[in-house]
């Protein structure tokens, strides 16, 4: 794993100027979602921490913040991009060999070091599994440093599940509990149907000594945090990954403010107790 151990990368001299990257691989993972493998045209790929993000720039279209979704791709950045806006659509249409701009990595990642010795509950909803996959990979690479490892994953439907091969491989391991649920399914789906927060109560982990890493749509995270709190997990042991509009990724443009925090630099991974006062207030 080529991941830096410091919380943040060294400040760049020109943090606004992207580096040129080349698309080495495109994998369609869902109908509207692709995974891009991006290699720098020059120099090494910067180190990153699981949970950090890059700003990807599509030529002449614009820039968007996308989390890094694979910690095991040596020399490249892997991003899973869903085509939802002009920029992400342009990115999702890139072909192998195409060039794009990339700045990063930015932001606060998952505090995996703090979780050492404790159980870890990873909870992902929808595309929220993307920024959690490098965390899961890092946890598995250092499996002996942690207690029980529980991975709870939700999606809209079986067809919308991300990284099915990884989920299957993790589920094979005797030292990992993987539970997957979908909002609705056809009768041929052998797995669970229901919402992610419902997976929390039956999962086997020590609520008094665990760290929960949560990423998904904000509503899903609110319900999930509520389920974790009901299960007895302290607020300061819950980490959520927030999403806001971002233009600069370095705390200057102001767009990503969430109360006093800039999601780009104080997040995107934020300790729940530090945002609990505004997590459920609309329009903050």
């Amino acid at each position, binding site marked *: 794993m080529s991941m830096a151990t410091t919380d*943040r990368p060294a400040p760049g001299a020109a943090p*606004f100027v992207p580096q040129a990257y080349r698309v080495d691989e495109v994998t369609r993972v869902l109908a509207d979602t692709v995974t891009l493998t991006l290699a720098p045209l020059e120099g090494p790929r910067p180190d990153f921490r699981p949970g950090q993000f890059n700003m990807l720039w599509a030529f002449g279209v614009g*820039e968007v913040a996308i989390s890094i979704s694979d910690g095991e791709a040596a020399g490249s950045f892997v991003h899973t991009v869903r085509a939802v806006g002009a920029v*992400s659509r342009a990115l999702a249409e890139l072909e192998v060999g195409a*060039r*794009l701009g990339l700045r990063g990595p930015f932001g606060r990642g998952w505090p995996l070091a703090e979780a050492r010795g404790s159980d870890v509950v990873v909870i992902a909803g929808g595309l929220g599994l993307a920024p959690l996959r490098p965390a899961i990979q890092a946890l598995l690479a250092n499996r002996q440093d942690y207690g029980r490892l529980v991975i709870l994953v939700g999606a809209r439907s079986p067809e919308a599940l991300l990284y099915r091969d990884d989920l299957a491989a993790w589920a094979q391991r005797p030292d990992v509990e993987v539970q997957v649920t979908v909002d609705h399914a056809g009768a041929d789906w052998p797995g669970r149907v229901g919402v992610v927060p419902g997976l929390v109560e039956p999962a086997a982990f020590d609520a008094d000594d665990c760290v929960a890493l949560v990423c998904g749509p904000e509503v899903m995270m609110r319900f999930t945090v509520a389920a974790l709190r009901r299960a007895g997990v302290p607020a300061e042991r819950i980490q959520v990954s927030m999403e*806001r509009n971002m233009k600069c990724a370095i*705390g200057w*443009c102001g767009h990503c403010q969430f109360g006093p925090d800039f999601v780009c630099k104080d997040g995107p991974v934020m300790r729940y107790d530090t945002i609990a006062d505004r997590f459920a207030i609309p*329009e903050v």
Partner: protein
Amino acid sequence: MEPEAMPRPAALIDRQGLQALIDALADEGYRVLGPMRRDDAIVYDDLAGIDELPAGWTERQEAGRYRLERRDDAALFGYAVGPHSWKRFLHPPVETLWTAHRDEHGLTFRAPEPAEERFAFLGVRACELHAIAIQDRVFLDGPYVDAGYAARRREAFIVAVNCGEAGGTCFCVSMQTGPRAEAGFDLALTELLDAERHDFLVEVGSAAGAALLERLPHRPAGEADREAAATVVARTASRMGRRLETDGLKALLQDNPEHPRWDDVAERCLTCGNCTMACPTCFCTTVEDHSDLSGTSAERVRQWDSCFTLDFSYLHAGSVRQTPRGRYRQWMTHKLASWIDQFGTSGCVGCGRCITWCPVGIDITEEAAAIRATAPDWRDD
């Protein structure tokens, strides 16, 4: 304000001395910028001589109102602040961040060469010195440094002016940011004007300021001159047009996101963003991408943005802050409360521009007072 242990070196110059100051700055290669009357307002622009200063003019400012009026004297700085602030030079409204070029070999990005321009600001008010110091924290104190801002800021020569006139929407006394310039300048002037004299007390704030003063015809300032200058500032301090109670203000706003006053102000707010453009500390920006028709060149431009736009908080499905209520609350809570969490200082310097230039006259001091008057108890901090 803390009384100073040692008075700063001070001197007196007259109007010719002020012209000499402008000339000396230009001679040293500065682009000298200062106040002048244009389009019925006092704005900041390139200044060649003292004749361009708004001699004998003042302004009447109220919520949503700004009118220039004749003074009954020939004061050069007998007004408060207009719609401009110095941020338009240090943190320009439009700035190219980089250009990109692609061909069969690859893709290259190039940041523009930093401009060689050195600014000299003449007539910077105490509140504006604080505003500059606040933007310094945004662009210079983070993990990253805005190189362009840093260069402009490092090179800038600042001539402050202590206010001899309080504007109708001024409340720097409440914010402890004026009306006297305490720090952050090279030279600070106080206009001393009566039937017998028209002089400027010059205080030195830096080595560069001291060196420049040596180039000007000046004479030593006496105790009486200092007292006259102190009187000017004290009189201005006693005539503030507005007042803002800052005690507990941060907690008051952060603890009352559902206060009904937010609905009330949202009924009036047009979400036009004027307050954010006029504000000397508002720093938010957006970016625009341009490309040529052949698809080989592109550029990225940064420009001032406002938290009052819907786009500001847009997130694939829609905007986080859909309502004027949410957007006004964001602006005011940021300015007066969360700014303190972020940068260790309030984002407000009490200049009153947001009040004056609001087309419907929304008054931040009045909104804060209304919330305070009817809020349930809030925590102490």
